C-alpha cells in the first residue's frame, strides 16, 4: 500500500504512524503530504474567482502595488521575471495571476510580519496577457495590473 492509499483509509493517520514505525515509509513522506496547497486557487480561470479562492470577496484596484520589475515585452514566454512591491500596510500575501494562462494563478507569496512586502519569481506565459498582482492585507484584497506582450509563448503546448 503506498502512502496515498494509506491516507485515504479510515484512520489514515494511524495507518501512517504504523507504516512509519514499521520502517515502510520515511517520516519525510508524511510531512510532504501534510503541506498546505490551495488546489482551488490554482484551478481558477479569472481574477474574481482567484480572489474568492484565496479567501476574499472582491479586489480593489490600488496604486500602492508596484511591478518593480517586469518586462513590457517578454522575448521568451517560458521564463518571464516579475517582481512586485506592495506598499499597502499589513500586506500578508502577494499573488501573481496571468490572465490568459490555462489557470490564472501562478504563485502566492506569504509575507509574515517583519518581512518586506516584496516578492520576485519567473513565470510561464502562454501568450500576451494582462498580469495581475493581487495583495491581501488585513483581510482585504487589492490588485494592480500590467500587460506583458509575449513574442514566443511558454506553455510548451
Amino acid at each position, binding site marked *: 500500500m503506498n502512502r496515498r492509499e494509506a491516507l485515504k483509509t479510515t484512520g489514515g493517520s494511524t495507518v501512517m504512524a504504523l507504516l512509519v514505525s514499521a520502517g515502510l515509509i520515511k517520516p519525510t513522506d508524511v510531512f510532504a503530504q501534510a503541506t498546505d496547497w*490551495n488546489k482551488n486557487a490554482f484551478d481558477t480561470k479569472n481574477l474574481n474567482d482567484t480572489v474568492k479562492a484565496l479567501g476574499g470577496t472582491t479586489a480593489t484596484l490600488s496604486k500602492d502595488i508596484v511591478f518593480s520589475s517586469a518586462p513590457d515585452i517578454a522575448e521568451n514566454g517560458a521564463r518571464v521575471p516579475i517582481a512586485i512591491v506592495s506598499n499597502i500596510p499589513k500586506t500578508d500575501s502577494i499573488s501573481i495571476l496571468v490572465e490568459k494562462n490555462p489557470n490564472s*494563478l501562478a*504563485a502566492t507569496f*506569504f509575507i509574515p510580519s517583519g518581512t*518586506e512586502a516584496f516578492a520576485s519569481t519567473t513565470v*510561464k506565459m502562454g501568450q500576451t496577457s494582462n498580469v495581475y498582482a493581487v495583495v491581501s492585507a488585513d483581510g482585504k484584497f487589492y490588485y494592480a495590473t500590467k500587460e506583458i506582450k509575449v513574442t514566443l509563448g511558454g506553455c*510548451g*503546448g
Partner: protein
Amino acid sequence: MADPMKIRARLQGDKTQVIVSMSHEMETGQRKDAAGKTVPAWFIQNVKATHNGKVVFSAQFGPAVAKNPNIGFRVNGAKVGDKIIMNWVDNRGDNRTDEITVTPA
C-alpha cells in the same frame, strides 16, 4: 534527491536580499512528449524560508512557475553569519532543503 538550490543572501543596511535558484522541471501536465504522450504534471508546490526557527517567507507555486525557477525576497533582522534555511516540496512529495549563510552585500 533533487539538485541543490543556489542561494545568495546579502545584507544591505538592515535588509537581507535572498535570491534562490531552484532546479526543477516544473511540468504543467499539458505538454506532450515526442511520442505524443502527455507528460504528467510535476512541479514545486510549497517553498519555505526559515531564519532562527521562524518562517520568514513562504510561497505556494502552481505549474505556471517557470522551469528551474528563481525566487527573491527580503527579510529584516538577520545578521552576517546567520543561516537561512530554504525548503521546497513538490506534488510528488519530493523535497529539497538547503541553507545559506548571510554575507555582506
